[in-house]
C-alpha cells in the first residue's frame, strides 16, 4: 500500500522530464496511468468479505510517528474516489489544457496533491495524517494559483491557503492534545480508548480544534468563503480538488474521528448545526451567482454541509446516507464541473446571463448536464442516484434521537424543516443552472465570444463515465451496498447501514418531503426573477469576504509597521535592542531564580602589581571613549591589550601571554595602517538623551556580566573537567604543555576550523582590498 501513496510522488519526479516532449506527447497521457493503476489495485478490495488491512513502516519511532497505513471501508471509499476521479480528471485535462501551458508544473502539483490525499485517507497516525493534510493545502494553493498572472487566481490561492492552513494548525493542536491525553498516536488505538478520552477535561478543546480543521477544509459556514474564489483554478482542478476530493477531507476527518466523539452530545450539536446552516446558506447563495463555476462552488458548499450534518446525526441511516452521498456527490458534481469547463472552452464565457439555448448546439453536453443537474436536485426518478441519498437524508432528519440537553430537542424539531428549505434551494439552483444554460434565454440577443460547437470526444469521455455512474447507481443502488458502502459506513459506526436501498418506500414522510421540495422548488425556479430582490435584504452588502479582506489587510499593515519600527537601518538601534533584551531576560531570570550569589571564601590574594595593571586597563578603556584623535584612540586600545597580556603572565598562562602580545602588536599595526584612510574622529555633539541611553545600556550590560561572573565563581554546581586534561595530557597526548595538547590533540578539529576561519578572514580581507567592480579604478 505504501507504494500506492508514494507512487504519485515518485512519478512526479519524472514529469518535468516527460513534459519536455509535450509538443508531440501530452504529459497527461503519461500521468494518467498513475491514478488508473492505483484505482485498479484498490478495486480488488471491494467485496462482501472485506476486512481492514494494516501496514506499518517506521518513520520517527522515537516520537511515536510511524508511517502506519490502515485501510478500512471508509478509506477504501475515499481511495477509490481519489484515484478514480483522479484518472478521469487527468484524462479530461489532456483535452482541457493546451500544450502551450506549463504542463510539467501542473501535473507535478496534481500528483503531489494525489499522494497527499491518499496519505490522509490511509494513514492511521495523526501526525502523518496532519503532514499530508497540509500538503493538500499547499498543492491546492499551487493549483489555484496555476494561472498566476491573473490577479483573481493569486487572491483565491492565498485565501484558500490562509483559511485551510489556519484550520490545519488548529487541528494539529487538537491532535497533540488528543495524543497526549490518549497516550497514543494511532487513530485506531484512540478509538479503542474513546471512553477514556470522553471523560477527559480537555475534551471540549480537542473537539473544537479538530472540528475547526475539518470545517475550514470542507468549506463549512462561515469558512466557506474560500471555495468560490478557488474556482479561479483550471476546471479539472476544480472538479478534482474542490468538489470531489480535497473538500471532502474535512468530512473524512469527522467520519474518522466520530467513533471517538459520537456519544458526546455536543459533537452532534455542533456538527449538525454547522452542517445544516451550511446546507441552507450555500444553496440559498448559489441561486444568486451568475458565474457558472460559482454556482457549482456554492452548490458544493451546500452539499458538503448536508453530508456534514448527516455525519453529525450519527444515526445508522444518517451515516449510511452520508457515505452514500459522498459517492453520489462525487459522480454528479464531478461531471457538472467538467461540463462547466466544456461550456467555458466552447463558448468563451462562464457568465450564465450570456448563455442559453445551448442544447441544440451542444447536445451531448446538454444531455450529460441534464442527468447531473437533476440528480443533484434530488428529482425522484429511479435512475438518478441523487434522489436516493437525499431521501435517506430526509429520513434521517426525522429519526433523530433526543438527548439530555434542551438544545438537542430544539434541533431535532428544527432540522427537518431546515433540511427541506435547503433542499428547495438546491432544487432551484439545479434548475437555474440547467435551464439557464440549455433552456430558452430571455434575452434574444445572445452574443457569445465564440461560436459554440460540440466538444471534442475526448473531453466528453470523463463526464460521460461519471454520468453513467450516476445512472448505474440510480438503477441498481444495491450493487454497491453490501460490497462497498456498508464497509465504509461500518467503519464510522459499526451498526450503521441499511439492508437495501429502494426507490419506493410507500408514502413515507420522507417521500412527502421530497415532493414538497419538488413542488415548491419548481414554483420558485419559475418565478426566480420575481423574488430575486430578496438578496438585497439578505445578505445585502454584508459578506464574510469583507471580514476576511479586512483582517488580512490589517494584519498586513500591522506587520509592516511592526517591522519598520525595529528594522530602521540604524546599527545603534539594533545593538540597543539586542543588548537590552539580553539584559532584561538574564536579569529577570536571575532575579526570579535567585541566581545571584556571592561567596568570598576561596579567592586568590590581591597584590599591588595586579591592582596597578587593572587600574591601567580601566583608565585606558575609558580613555578610548574620550579620545578624539585617531592615533591616540588606537594606542590607548593597545594599552588595554598589553595590559591584558600582563594579566595573563601574572595568572600563569604563558601561552596566552605570548599569543596576546603578538596578536595585539599586529592588531595595533593594522589599526594604524587603516586609520590613515579613516576620517578623523570628531567631537560628538550628541543630545543628552542619546548619551544617557548609551551610558545606561552599556553600564547595564557591564553590571550584568560582572554579576554573572561573580555568581558563577561563587557557586559550584559541577566538578571541573580540567582534571581529565591534566591527567591524560602526557599519557594520551604525549605532550607536556597541557594547553597545546588540548588545542592540537584533544580538540584538534576545533583548531582545524579555527585555522579555516582565519583563512577565510584572510581571503575576505584580501578581496575587500583588492577587488573592485571596475578594474583600474582605485
Amino acid at each position, binding site marked *: 500500500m505504501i507504494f500506492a501513496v508514494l507512487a504519485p510522488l515518485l512519478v512526479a519526479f519524472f514529469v518535468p522530464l516527460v513534459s519536455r516532449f509535450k509538443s508531440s506527447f501530452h504529459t497527461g497521457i503519461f500521468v494518467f496511468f498513475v491514478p488508473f493503476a492505483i484505482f485498479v489495485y484498490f478495486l480488488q478490495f471491494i467485496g462482501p468479505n472485506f476486512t481492514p488491512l494494516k501496514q506499518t513502516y517506521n518513520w520517527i519511532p522515537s516520537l511515536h510517528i510511524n508511517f502506519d497505513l490502515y485501510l478500512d471501508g471508509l478509506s477504501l471509499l475515499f481511495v477509490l474516489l481519489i484515484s478514480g476521479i483522479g484518472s478521469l480528471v487527468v484524462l479530461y485535462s489532456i483535452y482541457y489544457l493546451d500544450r502551450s501551458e506549463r504542463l510539467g508544473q501542473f501535473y507535478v502539483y496534481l500528483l503531489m496533491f494525489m499522494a497527499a490525499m491518499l496519505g490522509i485517507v490511509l494513514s492511521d497516525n495523526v501526525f502523518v495524517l496532519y503532514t499530508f493534510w497540509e500538503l493538500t493545502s499547499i498543492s491546492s494553493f499551487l493549483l489555484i494559483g496555476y494561472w498566476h498572472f491573473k490577479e483573481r487566481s493569486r487572491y483565491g490561492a492565498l485565501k484558500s491557503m490562509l483559511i485551510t492552513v489556519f484550520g490545519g494548525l488548529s487541528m494539529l493542536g487538537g491532535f497533540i492534545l488528543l495524543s497526549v491525553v490518549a497516550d497514543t498516536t494511532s487513530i485506531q488505538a484512540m478509538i479503542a480508548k474513546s471512553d477514556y478520552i470522553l471523560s477527559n477535561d480537555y475534551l471540549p478543546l480537542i473537539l473544537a480544534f479538530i472540528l475547526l480543521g475539518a470545517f475550514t477544509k470542507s468549506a463549512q459556514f462561515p469558512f466557506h468563503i474560500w471555495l468560490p474564489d478557488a474556482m479561479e483554478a483550471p476546471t479539472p482542478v476544480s472538479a478534482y480538488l474542490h468538489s470531489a476530493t480535497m473538500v471532502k477531507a474535512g468530512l473524512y476527518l469527522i467520519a474518522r474521528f466520530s467513533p471517538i466523539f459520537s456519544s458526546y452530545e455536543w459533537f452532534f450539536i455542533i456538527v449538525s448545526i454547522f452542517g445544516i446552516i451550511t446546507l441552507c446558506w450555500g444553496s440559498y447563495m448559489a441561486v444568486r451567482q451568475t458565474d457558472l463555476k460559482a454556482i457549482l462552488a456554492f452548490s458544493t458548499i451546500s452539499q458538503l454541509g448536508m453530508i456534514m450534518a448527516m455525519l453529525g446525526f450519527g444515526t445508522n441511516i444518517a451515516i449510511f446516507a452520508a457515505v452514500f452521498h459522498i459517492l453520489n456527490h462525487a459522480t454528479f458534481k464531478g461531471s457538472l464541473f467538467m461540463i462547466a469547463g466544456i461550456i467555458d472552452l466552447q463558448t468563451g464565457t462562464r457568465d450564465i446571463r450570456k448563455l442559453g439555448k445551448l442544447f441544440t448546439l451542444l447536445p451531448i453536453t446538454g444531455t450529460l448536464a441534464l442527468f447531473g443537474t437533476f440528480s443533484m436536485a434530488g428529482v425522484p426518478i429511479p435512475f438518478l442516484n441523487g434522489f436516493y441519498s437525499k431521501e435517506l437524508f430526509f429520513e434521517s432528519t426525522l429519526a433523530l434521537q433526543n438527548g439530555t440537553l434542551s438544545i438537542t430537542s430544539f434541533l431535532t424539531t428544527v432540522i427537518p424543516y431546515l433540511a427541506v428549505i435547503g433542499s428547495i434551494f438546491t432544487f432551484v439552483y439545479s434548475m437555474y443552472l440547467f435551464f439557464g444554460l440549455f433552456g430558452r434565454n430571455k434575452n434574444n440577443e445572445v452574443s457569445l465570444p465564440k461560436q459554440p460547437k460540440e466538444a471534442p470526444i475526448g473531453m466528453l469521455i470523463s463526464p460521460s463515465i461519471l454520468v453513467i455512474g450516476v445512472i448505474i447507481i440510480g438503477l441498481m443502488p444495491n450493487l454497491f451496498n453490501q460490497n462497498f458502502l456498508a464497509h465504509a459506513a461500518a467503519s464510522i459506526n459499526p451498526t450503521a447501514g441499511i439492508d437495501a436501498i429502494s426507490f419506493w418506500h410507500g408514502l413515507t414522510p420522507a417521500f412527502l418531503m421530497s415532493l414538497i421540495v419538488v413542488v415548491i422548488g419548481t414554483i420558485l425556479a419559475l418565478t426566480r426573477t420575481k423574488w430575486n430582490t430578496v438578496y438585497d435584504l439578505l445578505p445585502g452588502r454584508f459578506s464574510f469576504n469583507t471580514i476576511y479582506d479586512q483582517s488580512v489587510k490589517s494584519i498586513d499593515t500591522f506587520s509592516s509597521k511592526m517591522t519598520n519600527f525595529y528594522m530602521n537601518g*540604524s546599527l545603534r538601534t539594533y*545593538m540597543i535592542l539586542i543588548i537590552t533584551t539580553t539584559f532584561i531576560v538574564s536579569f529577570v531570570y536571575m532575579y526570579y531564580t535567585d541566581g545571584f550569589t556571592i561567596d568570598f571564601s576561596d579567592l586568590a*590574594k590581591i597584590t599591588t602589581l595586579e591592582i596597578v595593571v587593572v587600574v591601567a586597563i580601566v583608565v585606558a578603556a575609558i580613555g578610548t571613549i574620550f579620545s578624539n584623535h*585617531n592615533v591616540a*584612540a588606537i594606542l590607548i586600545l593597545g594599552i588595554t591589550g598589553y595590559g591584558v597580556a600582563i594579566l595573563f603572565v601574572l595568572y600563569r598562562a604563558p601561552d596566552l601571554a605570548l599569543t596576546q602580545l603578538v596578536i595585539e602588536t599586529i592588531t595595533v599595526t593594522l589599526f594604524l595602517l587603516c586609520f590613515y584612510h*579613516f576620517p578623523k574622529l570628531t567631537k560628538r555633539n550628541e543630545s543628552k538623551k542619546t548619551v544617557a541611553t548609551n*551610558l545606561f545600556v552599556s553600564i547595564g550590560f557591564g553590571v550584568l556580566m560582572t554579576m554573572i561572573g561573580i555568581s558563577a565563581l561563587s557557586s559550584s554546581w559541577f566538578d571541573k573537567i580540567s582534571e581529565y586534561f591534566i591527567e591524560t*595530557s602526557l599519557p594520551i597526548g604525549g605532550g607536556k604543555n597541557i594547553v597545546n595538547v588540548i588545542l592540537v590533540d584533544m580538540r584538534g578539529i576545533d583548531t582545524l576550523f579555527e585555522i579555516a576561519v582565519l583563512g577565510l578572514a584572510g581571503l575576505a580581507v584580501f578581496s575587500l582590498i583588492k577587488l573592485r567592480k571596475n578594474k583600474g579604478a582605485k
Partner: protein
Amino acid sequence: MEFIICILAGILFATGVYNILQKQLLRIAIGTGLISHAAHLFILTMGKLKRGQPPIILEGITEYTDPLPHALILTSIVISFGVTSVVLVLAYRTVNENNTDNMEQLRGNEYE
C-alpha cells in the same frame, strides 16, 4: 582578586558596548576589540586564578592552573584577531566607497 577581574571585565564590556553605540566606524571597531578583551578575561577568571603552576607538566608538581580556559582563550584570541581585521578592512572599504564613516548615513536608502 577574581571579583576584581570580574568587575574589570564588566568595565571593559561596558566601554566596548558604549563604543559600539557610537556613529563613527573606527569607534565601533575599537569597541569590538574591547569586548573581546573583556570576554577573554571573563573566561580566564572562570577557572579561578593563581591555583598552582603554569600548565606545563614538570616532575614533582601536582597543582596546575586550569588549562581549559587557556585553550579556549587561545582559540578566541586568534578568532577575534580575524574578526577585528575583517571589521577594519570592511570599514575601510565602506569609508572609501561612501565617503563617510557615519553610521547614521549608512542606513541604506529605504528609510531615508
